């Protein structure tokens, strides 16, 4: 079969053509209006990036059905591999099945995780010794900045992957509410990734926070970041709307909100954050772009603006974003823990509502990133108090996990190990938070490696570890085969101690005075050994991830057949064959009990077909 039939290939060609059109258009217009010189790189490339992005979406075929609708052509929702093409081709083109899209998201997330980690290894190697060895400071800054955004993209993609694959299955729906929008929301990430990575060739040195005025006077790579993230934000907003509608409108009879699997609650809270906060980063990045292009003065004090305004709009998204990143991971922990404890989730309602509470408090704490920024001094106090408040719902989660473990019958296969690893790592991240949340103790620590250690622990504990746990846990459901258990455990025992070493190492040298984002450091700080340890740990983590990738690929062929429900899990998706059939459920399901009633004799959560007899379950159906 010809490569040209793959949506991805056509999309890339579309993006290339679109970019050229954009470049030509601006140059032509400038020539036409007599602007001198006609070729001005920055506006030309910006137009190229935007039209290229649209070109990709057109080329990949994500707009096909909508264009047909406009012309009055009916488009039945096609399920199954496209006619005349092998099954694997589905993953490289537009497909409306949420399970395919979930896997597309998940695999892209892993690729981005490896690219982001790869960037980190490059500059970590540079930092082993003081002095500049093989990177100049410009390259260092660009790679360091790219590490941030590629890794965060990986997080957002992984959240898309987990929620797309799992939520419709967990609520017994045949697919997402808007399958075409779902495919669009995935594919818009691909041109975003290309734009982001293209910034490498133009250089940018603002860190992932791209604070002006540096991002105004810096080189052109910034523009690619702005529009890459803008497209990414589009994906977040559209994806979250889809998830929310699916969850609120498509649950089966009997599944009241408080009978959803707990992961759905976490995703619900995350989706509301994504839907309402992402606009702010899109807007603030557009304002940066226009300030560069058109000389607008939003952030320019000479024109009546202020650089601090950007920090407000940036963190108004980017702090809730941290909760967007970690809530689904915490949901995964709460979801998997009861299975391997053979016990109900302790305090289901409290855990569910703590996600909502974290999401709500998350909106009023952004100023804690700005304690030393020069914003109004009085603002420090309310932000300090609201920040400390986050500890309360987070504490509820930890204590509920302990309550779940207590008195269980615990087994420790790889997903359980990663869940326990996640709890310990997230605890490290969480507990290093309040020290940064009180202004006075934040002063010596902010902008140092202590902050780095803190948020790497938060993101590894809230995202990377749970994501890996989820991959191992749902791998048998997705592929129908088991991964290699010994290799999975080896992965855990390499990665967890290595991560602890890395994160604690970062905190230690941060306290000693190592600043963030510096290409070279003062040898008199005596942090060289710390850097050596962190770098070794970084390589060990990378090795662990590669081991997992090998395990997953290898087990596709040789893994032992998993059966429907190897974990004896009560969630609906484990009651149907593995891998999940094209149309997940042969008949509509209904919910007749509580999701986590392990240890309660004769209790069932779902049954295939309509509810028979169980009158109390019907009463819950209309709760939303």
């Amino acid at each position, binding site marked *: 079969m010809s490569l040209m039939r793959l949506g991805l290939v056509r999309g890339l060609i579309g993006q290339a053509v679109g970019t050229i059109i954009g470049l030509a258009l601006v140059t032509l217009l400038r020539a036409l209006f007599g602007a001198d010189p006609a070729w001005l790189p920055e506006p030309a490339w910006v137009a190229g990036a935007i039209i290229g992005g649209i070109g990709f979406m057109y080329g990949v075929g994500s707009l096909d059905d909508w264009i047909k609708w406009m012309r009055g052509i009916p488009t039945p929702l096609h399920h199954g591999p496209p006619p005349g093409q092998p099954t694997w081709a589905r993953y490289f083109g537009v497909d409306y099945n949420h399970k395919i899209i979930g896997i597309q998201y998940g695999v892209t997330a892993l690729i981005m995780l490896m690219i982001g980690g790869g960037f980190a290894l490059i500059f970590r190697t540079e930092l082993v010794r003081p002095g500049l060895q093989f990177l100049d400071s410009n390259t260092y800054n660009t790679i360091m900045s790219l590490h941030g955004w590629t890794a965060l993209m990986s997080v957002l993609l992984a959240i898309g992957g987990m929620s797309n694959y799992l939520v419709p299955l967990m609520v017994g729906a045949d697919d997402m509410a808007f399958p075409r929008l779902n495919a669009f929301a995935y594919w818009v990430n691909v041109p975003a990734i290309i734009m982001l990575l293209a910034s490498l060739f133009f250089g940018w040195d603002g*860190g992932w926070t791209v604070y002006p005025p540096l991002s105004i006077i810096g080189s052109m790579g910034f523009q690619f970041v702005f529009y890459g993230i803008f497209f990414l934000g589009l994906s977040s907003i559209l994806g979250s709307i889809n998830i929310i509608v699916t969850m609120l409108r498509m649950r089966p009879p009997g599944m009241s909100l408080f009978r959803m699997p707990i992961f759905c609650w976490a995703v619900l809270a995350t989706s509301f954050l994504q839907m309402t906060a992402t606009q702010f980063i899109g807007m603030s990045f557009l304002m940066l772009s226009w300030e560069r292009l058109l000389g607008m003065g939003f952030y*320019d004090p000479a024109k009546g603006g*202020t650089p601090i305004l950007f920090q407000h709009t940036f963190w108004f998204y980017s702090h809730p974003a941290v909760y967007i990143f970690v809530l689904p991971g915490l949901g995964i922990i709460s979801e998997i823990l009861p299975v391997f404890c053979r016990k*109900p989730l302790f305090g*289901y309602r409290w855990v569910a509502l703590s996600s909502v509470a974290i999401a709500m408090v998350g909106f009023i704490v952004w100023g804690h990133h700005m304690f030393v*920024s020069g914003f109004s001094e009085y603002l420090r106090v309310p932000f300090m108090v609201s920040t400390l408040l986050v500890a309360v719902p987070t504490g509820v989660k930890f204590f509920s996990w302990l309550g779940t*473990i207590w008195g269980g019958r615990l087994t420790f296969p790889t997903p359980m190990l990663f869940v326990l690893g996640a709890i310990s790592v997230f605890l490290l991240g969480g507990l290093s938070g309040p020290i940064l949340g009180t202004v006075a103790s934040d002063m010596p620590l902010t902008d140092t490696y202590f902050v780095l250690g803190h948020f790497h622990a938060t993101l590894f504990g809230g995202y990377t570890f749970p994501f890996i746990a989820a991959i191992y846990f749902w791998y048998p459901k997705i592929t129908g085969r088991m991964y290699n258990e010994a290799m999975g455990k080896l992965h855990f025992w390499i990665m967890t101690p290595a991560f602890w070493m890395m994160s604690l190492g970062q905190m230690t040298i941060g306290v000693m005075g190592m600043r963030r984002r510096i290409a070279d450091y003062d040898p008199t700080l005596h942090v060289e050994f710390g850097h050596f340890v962190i770098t070794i740990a970084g390589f060990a983590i990378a090795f662990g991830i590669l081991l997992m990738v090998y395990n997953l690929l290898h087990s596709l062929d040789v893994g032992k057949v998993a059966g429907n429900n190897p974990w004896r899990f009560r969630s609906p998706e484990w009651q149907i064959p593995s891998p999940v059939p094209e149309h997940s459920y042969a008949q509509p399901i209904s919910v007749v009990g509580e999701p986590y009633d392990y240890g309660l004799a004769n209790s069932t959560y779902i049954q295939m077909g309509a509810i028979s007899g169980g009158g109390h379950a019907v009463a819950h159906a209309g709760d939303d």
Partner: protein
Amino acid sequence: MPKSASDKRHFVIVAALIAVFTVILYFVLDKMLPLPRQGSDEALIIDDLIHSHLMVIAFLFSLVVVFMIYALIVFRKREGDESEGEHFEGNTVLEVVWTIVPLIFVVVFAFYGINTLAQVTHSEPNEFQVKAEGQQWSWDFVYPNGVVSPELVLPVNRRIHVTLHSKDVLHDFWIPEMRVKQDLVPGQDTQIRFTPILTGDFKVRCAELCGRNHYSMETPVHIMQQADYDKWMSDQEVAQLSGGSTVTGTTTITGTTTVTGTASISSTTNVTGTTAITQ
């Protein structure tokens, strides 16, 4: 070893382990996080706050981890045991307790934090005034009498008030030994205050990413006795201000790169080098 999950002996053992582990962990944390020398009054206050945080961290970490590891060992599934875990779905009293108790911690720390902030940032009459100007990638310090220096020289045991001014992008004024930190924002002056209590040599390090050579935006700080400071200042006045022009305010000194040769301090030789890279 008691088997039932609600057996009181479990909790006695766990409580004892938590107590022991908390103490050990506190000492480990204290060793593992070696703060720089305490160079100012603020360092004393802030380090106390940090150590109170470390105590709470040691306790909460022990609480969760000891409970977790104890449970992992005691409640692991034994060979041949196919039973399910004990069925309990939650405990509202416990949930309320572990919502209220952290809330009390939050209130206490918020109160403590606000007080510390007030102590650290308070202003006094007769503060020692100096202005710091940051630019990519060097510092200039302008004294009220018009003396300009690429290195910061300050008297010990006086409340220092630095007015921070940026000429281009964001920077951050940070002397690790003084603990406090403040961004420089173009278009507005920001303030930082501290009271040095140690004499000696330190460094101002820029702590906000400011472009290509951000890593090298450091300059020496010399804290000295008032008498030594006065001598240094009079040397500077002779060198910089004796040219006949009456310098009244700080604003008249703009050509700050000209002062590099006036070294009365031993280690200024690399200063010209730093300014040369910048433009």
